[in-house]
């Protein structure tokens, strides 16, 4: 009986050995480096991004603009429309001019959010500014202009009026303000000269 049990034990050992042999192999990247040379190659850091972008630099140059003709969501502004802006002051980078005062540059109306019920304001999102000699990937230029936000008083009014049946719902019809980019609005976009 003992012999039989010993044989069974031996077979079990063998079976287990086979199972563990089928272990999942280590991922290539997790394998230890074969030699010191490989380690050195892996740790070499050239600090040059192979990606189409490199946001390492924090150096940003503000460019101040104002719109030439006032626009509003009330006046049939459409998405994709080009808007003209005027540069407000000279901008230099390393003593070289980037843009000069009164230069004209264009931006695009990316999205228009219409004003909504309960006093929610309209919004204009302008982006895609085009400046001669500057790659658009070097700019952070999203500009958002909102209309008057009336929710601050519409919601308290709504809740105050709910004690009278149905009257609170009437505030639904109060619309938010239209968004208007005025000529005196100063729009600041940022130029990152060291970005790709």
């Amino acid at each position, binding site marked *: *009986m*003992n012999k039989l*049990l*010993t044989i*069974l*034990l031996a077979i*079990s*050992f063998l*079976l*287990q050995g086979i*199972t*563990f042999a089928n272990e*999942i192999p280590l991922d290539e990247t997790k394998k230890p480096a074969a030699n010191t040379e490989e380690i050195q190659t892996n740790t070499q850091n050239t600090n040059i991004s192979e*990606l*189409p*972008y490199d*946001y390492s630099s924090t150096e940003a140059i503000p460019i101040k603009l104002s719109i030439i003709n006032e626009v509003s969501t009330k006046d*049939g502004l*459409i*998405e*994709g429309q080009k808007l003209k802006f005027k540069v407000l002051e000279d901008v230099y980078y390393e003593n070289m001019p980037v843009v000069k005062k009164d230069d004209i540059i264009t931006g695009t109306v*990316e*999205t228009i*959010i*219409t004003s*909504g*019920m*309960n006093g*929610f304001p309209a919004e204009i999102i302008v982006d895609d500014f085009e400046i001669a000699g500057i790659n658009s*990937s070097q700019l*952070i230029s999203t500009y*958002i202009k909102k209309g008057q*936000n009336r*929710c601050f008083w519409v919601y308290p009014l709504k809740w105050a009026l709910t004690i009278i049946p149905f009257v609170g719902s009437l505030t639904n019809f109060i619309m938010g303000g239209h968004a208007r980019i005025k000529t005196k609005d100063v729009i600041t976009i940022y130029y990152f000269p060291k970005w790709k």
Partner: protein
Amino acid sequence: MKRLLTTLICIMILAPCAYSLDSENAEQLLKEQEIQTRIDKIGINLLNYNKIPRRIVFVYDKREKKKFLTTDKALTKRQIILYDGLYQSIQTDDELAAMLAREISTAIKSYSGIWGGMLDSLEVTLGSKKFETVADKRAVDYMVNAGYNPLALIVYINKTCPQKRFDKFSRHNLTSKRLARIYEYITYKYPDYLKNNDYINNEYYQNFLLNSIENRRMLQVKIENNSTEELDYE
């Protein structure tokens, strides 16, 4: 001695079973890790190419989405959750980018405005119909900037969003309206994608063309008349 041997044999027999269960779990884990990596990669691409200087994370969840009593994590935690049910409908990277780009545009909104973006988040929640359209349009922009084909957004929505009867009292637009607005937005802003249409041989896109004949006809008339009027799509 016999008892000891019997115990040892039992252990030896049971150990491989436990190991095989472990390897099944490991396989499942690897699969989920692969999906998560794919989602992260495309999500981060969208953020980087669009120069979005805000933190947004992407999470794959193999559970089904609970319809009710859940807050939109994109607005509260800036966390975009992709549920397995939706993931199964996604075939290409473009479609995955479409799904993520929509959610990114919602999450971005939660960063703007006063009280750490709380008011703007409330605005998105309450005015969900309006912001649904905005999110669709911004998604198209994000996709184009990151090098994905925006027509994939049409394919993705056509595949995954059901069509209700009415939208007058609903918090959401009719899917057919959303699709028509996206198509119009691409027509005006990114016409090259329609001229050199990579999706012309895509069955799902052709299905959209089939179910949007009336809406596309309205758009055609608008273009011919150089009108700027907002169309009331069906």
